[in-house]
């Protein structure tokens, strides 16, 4: 059996369940909207500023470093899978790969891109 048939079944089930839960909220339950109620909730006080403020660039830097390290992890997994056959050759190969990336990591640390203040 194709191993992706269960994936499809579960995917359809999950999407349906999510959609049902999302729709249940709209159909069950009372509905009497008032302006105060539909204001953004800020612990009761009237809202001060809009939600559309610019966010810190830190989040962006985190995301960018995440991508690059994520790819490194993927390559590490590939190597781990082939490790028994490659032996020392593979270890040296991945060491070179890692040393280059650790250089990048040290640069990131030195530039203070990981400092959250």
């Amino acid at each position, binding site marked *: 059996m194709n191993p992706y048939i269960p994936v499809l079944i579960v995917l359809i089930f999950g999407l349906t369940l999510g959609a049902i839960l999302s729709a249940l909220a709209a159909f069950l339950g009372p509905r009497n909207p008032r302006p105060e109620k539909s204001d953004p909730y800020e612990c009761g006080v009237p809202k001060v500023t809009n939600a559309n403020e610019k966010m810190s660039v830190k989040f962006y830097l985190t995301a960018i470093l*995440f*991508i690059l390290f994520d790819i490194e992890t*993927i390559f590490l997994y*590939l190597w781990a899978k082939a490790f028994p056959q490659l032996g020392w050759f593979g270890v040296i190969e991945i060491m070179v790969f890692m040393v280059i*990336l650790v250089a*990048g990591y040290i640069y*990131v640390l030195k*530039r203070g891109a990981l400092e959250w203040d």
Partner: protein
Amino acid sequence: MPDFSILITHGVFHLFAALITLCSLMVVVSKHPVKSAVFLVVDLFLLAGLYASLDSHFVAAIQVLVYAGAILVLFLFVIMLLNLQPEELKGLKFSAVEAGTLVISLIGFLITIVTAFKGDQTGLGDGSLDPAAIETAGGNTYVVAMKLLTNYIWPFELASILILMAIVAAIVIAKKDQKKPAAQ
């Protein structure tokens, strides 16, 4: 029941293809960047499904893990960071020359590629690794790993340098203005 399975395979492919085309279209024409990004996520997920149907399990997983799970998160973050508003699409200038060029290039692409591969497929590779052979050799992931770490060792090491350069470049570019207040 071979006919049945062929029917299903084709049906699934055409369903996926239709959805992918639709999502790609929505990515390009959506007014709101967040909408585009979400459609792109769905698009990438569906493409991963196509890869899986082509027995490229590892690539499918990477597609979801890196593309949908990492790169598009970065896009979403930047869209939210810059607080981009829906864009006016009225400025889409379809000058006849541009649109015509696009359509003709599309048709040219289709004809070129389809005719190029219409004939026999020999000479393009050793053809030794059909799905059954991959299965006996230790699974798709293992075969890809061995190929990458033996035949493609130089591109693999160069990829690390590329990533290193991307890290440095991104930080230099994005953090540039942060130093100014400290200097003043």
